[in-house]
């Protein structure tokens, strides 16, 4: 009887066009939108040379070390700037039209960077000009000190300057970079997977409504049917869970293979998290369906609100999950969306599995609690009149 009912419940679900849309089409459409919108968010960090102008007047030409060093920044494959040498009027014009991010000129020996607005390129231009000016000063300083040491003797100024340049350019600091750079955009997709799992709440709510005499006519028929109610409820929920799990796994593989989202290499753990996440959502739908004594549409709205607020806290709408973790630390620790998102994040970012295990166990505990509360409310329901 269980499998017979399961088969028909699954068929009924697949014929419900709205549920198929929300479970099997909408998350894929959203994943595509995410991919289109966020594809450059990670790439924009890749450096590209930008346009700057240099006022090539006598004052600039007199700063030999500085001008020579600055010239090298616009040369070669790894150049920082596309440099245009112009007079001051033309530089002003280029800046005004937005053709350059800034221009450099020398006035009374002082190096000046002129920009139109604040921004990353402007900061890079200023910092680099500072660095070049600094190096020029260091070369002068070191050469002067060496010449002072040889006071009274005949010195080869050019050789001293050559050595000074060598010292300054060779002063590569001993900086050990231990960065473990990750793609922050991945988290958006994790919250999307979590949201897709949460569609399970809508599926299970729909399946529970079919068994509840106070909600639907079908529920009334089920109530007086000779089949045990537990079997009907369990087979209905399993049918919803099957549909959800298939959709979520398909979404994970779609985002991984087609859109190139990184989840780490631990495929079994990814599937386990999807399974547990789907279970938590299914139990949430069951719980809300049982405790809310209201219309079907109102239940659906409440589920959507719970899902959307959970997604917001999980970082799906631009404000990071970490912000909400600090604002309301408990929410993401009990919200299935937060736990699923954090599970995927820990799989991708953390080498240690502890955090992932904590997330999985939390999801199981949340599911068990929701199940227990739902069963408690469902048992021994009797109607004198309905």
């Amino acid at each position, binding site marked *: 009887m269980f499998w017979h009912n399961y088969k028909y419940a699954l068929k009924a679900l697949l014929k419900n066009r*709205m549920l198929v849309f*929300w479970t099997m089409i909408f998350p894929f459409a959203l994943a595509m*939108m*995410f991919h*289109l*919108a*966020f594809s450059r*968010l990670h790439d924009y960090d890749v*450096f590209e040379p930008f346009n700057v102008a240099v006022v090539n007047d006598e004052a600039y030409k007199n700063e030999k070390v500085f001008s020579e060093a600055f010239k090298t920044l616009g040369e070669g494959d790894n150049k920082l700037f596309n440099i245009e040498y112009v007079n001051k009027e033309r530089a002003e014009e280029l*800046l005004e039209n937005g053709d350059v991010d800034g221009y450099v000129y020398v006035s009374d020996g*002082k*190096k000046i*960077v*002129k*920009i*139109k*607005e*604040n*921004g*990353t390129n*402007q*900061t890079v231009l*200023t*910092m680099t000009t500072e*660095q070049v*000016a*600094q190096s020029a*000063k*260091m070369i002068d*300083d*070191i050469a002067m*000190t060496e010449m002072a040491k040889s006071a009274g003797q005949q010195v080869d100024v050019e050789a001293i300057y050559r050595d000074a340049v060598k*010292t*300054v350019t060779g*002063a*590569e*600091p*001993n*900086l050990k970079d231990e*960065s*473990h*750079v*990750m*793609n*922050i955009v991945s988290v958006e997709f994790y919250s999307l997977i979590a949201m897709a799992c949460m569609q399970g709440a809508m599926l299970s709510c729909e399946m529970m409504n079919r068994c509840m005499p106070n909600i639907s006519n079908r529920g009334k028929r089920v109530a007086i049917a000779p089949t045990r109610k537990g079997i009907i409820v369990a087979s209905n929920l399993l049918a919803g869970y099957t549909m959800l799990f298939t959709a979520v796994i398909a979404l994970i593989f779609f985002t991984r293979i087609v859109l190139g989202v990184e989840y780490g290499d631990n495929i079994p753990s990814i599937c386990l998290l999807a399974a547990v996440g789907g279970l938590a959502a299914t139990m949430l739908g069951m719980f809300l369906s049982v405790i809310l004594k209201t219309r079907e*549409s109102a239940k659906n709205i409440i589920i*959507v*609100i719970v899902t*959307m607020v959970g997604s*917001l806290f999980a970082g799906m*709408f*631009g404000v*990071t*999950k*970490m*912000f909400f973790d600090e604002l309301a630390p408990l929410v993401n620790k009990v919200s299935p969306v937060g736990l699923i998102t954090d599970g995927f*994040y820990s799989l991708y*970012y*953390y080498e240690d599995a502890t*955090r992932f295990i904590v997330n999985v166990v939390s999801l199981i505990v949340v599911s068990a609690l929701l199940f227990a509360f739902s069963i408690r409310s469902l048992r021994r329901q009797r109607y004198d009149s309905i």
Partner: protein
Amino acid sequence: MIVSKAFWKIVLKNIGSIILPTVILLMFGTISVTSVDSTAQYEARKPALVIFNHDENVGLTKNFIEYLEENATIKTGYEDDDRLKDALFYEEVTAVIEIPENFHQDMALGHDPEVKMRSSAGYVAELAKVAVRRYLSVAKGYSALHLSEQELVAKVDKAIANGVKTEMKAAVDTSKYAKASRYYSFANYTILSCFITIICLIMSAFNREQVRKRNLVGAIDIKKMNRILLRNCCIYVLAAWVFYVVISVFVLGVEVVFTAQGALYAVNSLVFAACATTIAYLISIFALSAGAVNGLQNVLALGTSFLCGAFVPAEYLPDSVLAFAHVLPSYYYIDANDKIMKIQQFDAATMVPILLEIAVVAGFCVLFVALANIISKKRQRIA
């Protein structure tokens, strides 16, 4: 009266569909508009650094930390490694610098102590690396002169201070309008969600075949009924728009909203609200079910918001996406918001492009109404 009553009854029944996007707008408005660069004077983008100093805070080490404090925002309270890792991932912390034991002595002696650095992804992290490298290079360069630590600190200080003067061309601080621009651009999602859902549900309810046939033979003239529906739709749209503008006073402040720019933002959003209404009117002709309306509304509101720069600024969107976005009214609405933010003076050069974009959105209104009329007539003939 009966028609109006039915109209507002449907609005109240679907109040959840209005509240949810509005709450999200309010939360987004208050949360994500906190840090905006000022443009009145030059400000380097400062990385957020966490420093773990294993050395004594004296001499060159002290000088190095002071230099970092000047060139970065120093963050504390990240002793927990998980919290630090999360902060690096979410780019709340740009980099972590670990200064080794005996750093100041080793540096002065010309040894080469290893400074460890962990950074997040991104441009600002690169800037942090440049800043750290800059100090260490200068210190290492001068250490070749075998100076005392005091002399070395003085030399490094002098070299670092040999900075560059930065002049700013812009004289107007537009940072406060950046907040307004983000708020109104995000409102693209809210306006589309609220207007499409409610208007579609109401119009679909009245356009449903059975209901339409009943109304045709009813006591109220169908033209009168349409007029009442239109009037109520306008009241709903205007009330919602006024509500969003009122919210903006709380989120953005009086000094932003009650300015010429603030008025332009409001006018732009009003025209877009009218456009959203015409989109809803066009959809409602198909008399879709509540579920279908909900699905379509989500696809349209989220889709246009993602593709036109409401959620992610347009400058970060791929060119192909932006090229496609040109066929959507949201693109012109959001682009006009960005242009309003950059207004430095009100003249033809700045106003014409903005007014043109508002006109394009108004043009979309006409297009949708025309389309709706053509489709509606065709469907009437079929019926």
